[in-house]
């Protein structure tokens, strides 16, 4: 934690994301761009991996996102935060990718390419035995597949709310919808997901659903 906060303390005295982007825009400063890439590369990769369901595609898309930011640096307006700008670009890149690969999508989803998605169960619960890790990886893969069986507009809401932690209001801004619509889509998405996952994860989920008032029952079960 000490190193973590120290790195953030040093960040206080370095360029902010917005200042770095301003330099990229006005002075074509490669160092400022390198700072931005260094700070946001892993987040962008993860974001794109969530949307594509594939680590390698996520990395490719992340590169595309930064290339696009550099190419269209003059489009950046210094009104909001750079992070929100980056999120919008990354989201659009993911949507473009979906559009481009629409006909290949089903085959991608049906293929059991767990090795490519790198389900990081081991790091999430390091005390588990190899068998348990294997079981968790299978569950994770099942979840991933279930998620990708959902229609796109439901899946996007789930990724943005559940994995990216955006508020419904922020998602509504990003998707250009009303917050009410986003919330109802979220409810529908969760309902469908529960229905899909019921036969697969019956024992785990049923244990979780029997409890009340716990925010993250599955996580507790892991511990």
């Amino acid at each position, binding site marked *: 934690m000490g190193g973590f906060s120290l790195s953030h*303390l040093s960040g206080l005295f370095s360029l902010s994301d917005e200042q770095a982007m301003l330099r990229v825009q006005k002075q074509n400063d490669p160092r400022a761009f390198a700072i931005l890439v260094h700070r946001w590369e892993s987040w962008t990769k993860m974001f794109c991996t969530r949307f594509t369901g594939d680590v390698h595609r996520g990395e490719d898309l992340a590169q595309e996102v930064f290339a696009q930011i550099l190419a269209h640096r003059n489009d950046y307006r210094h009104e909001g935060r750079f992070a929100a700008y980056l999120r919008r670009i990354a989201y659009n890149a993911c949507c473009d990718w979906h559009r481009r690969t629409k006909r290949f999508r089903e085959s991608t989803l049906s293929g059991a390419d767990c090795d490519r998605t790198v389900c990081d169960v081991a790091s999430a619960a390091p005390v588990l035995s190899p068998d348990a890790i294997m079981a968790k990886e299978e569950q994770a893969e099942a*979840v991933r597949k279930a998620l990708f069986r959902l229609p796109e507009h439901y899946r996007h809401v789930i990724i943005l709310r559940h*994995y990216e932690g955006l508020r*419904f209001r922020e998602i509504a801004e990003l998707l250009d919808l009303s917050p009410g619509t986003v919330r109802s889509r979220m*409810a529908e998405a969760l309902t469908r*997901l529960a229905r899909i996952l019921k036969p697969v994860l019956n024992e785990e989920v049923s244990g*979780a*659903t029997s409890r009340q008032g716990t925010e*993250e029952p599955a996580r507790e079960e892991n511990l």
Partner: protein
Amino acid sequence: MTHPTREEWMAYLYGELDTQKETTLKSHLQECPQCEHEVAAWRGAMAALDMWQLPGNHKSAFRLRQVTRRAVRWAAAAALLIAAGYVAGRVSAPRPLDREQLFVSLKSSLEPAIRLSLAEQTKRDMGLALASNNARFSKELAQFKEKLNAQHRRDLNEFAAKTLVISGAATDQRLRELIISIDSTQRQDRYRFAAALSQIESNRLQDKTRLRHSMAGLAALTATELHRTKQGLTQLLSAAQRDQPDPGEFEYGEPPNERREK
């Protein structure tokens, strides 16, 4: 019994409701098995979603990053504020009474009086010394001034004399040079004049000799011409005598006249 909407349940599940609304929904959940069942299904789905972890994924790296940055900023601001407060407190706080402070206060109260008396004493002593010193000093000053004046006058005279002598010598020298130059000029003029005179003289002599020569030539020419004329006349006379022997007196009267003219 009115059930909360699905949208409200979503906001509830993701903690985006205000506390009052949240307690309302919570109490409803305990009373309504229908809603409880629905919410349990959603919670199951949410728990399942948590199973798909990516390397390095905290629930949201993005928000965590923003939140920690903001938190660190606030922490830094708070630390600065605390430090400033501490410094201000240290500066403004009254110190406990101790020996050092007593000494300082004593010193501060006594020091001006001591300084004042010391200064007066010094001033008086200085005044006396200055008075006696002053008289001696003014006498010495007057003597020195006189000496300086005399020296100055002497130096001035000497310098004037020297200047005069030097300037006299220089003037003599100049005069001598002037005289010499005038003399030489006069002599040159005289030489030139003499040369011109001798030139004139020689010219005159030359002219004279040339004249004499030409006169002699002329005389010779005249003599020969006269002789020829006499011959011609004699011939003419002889020729005329043959024709007319009469005008003899004319023949002899004429030549003396001619000679006289010449």
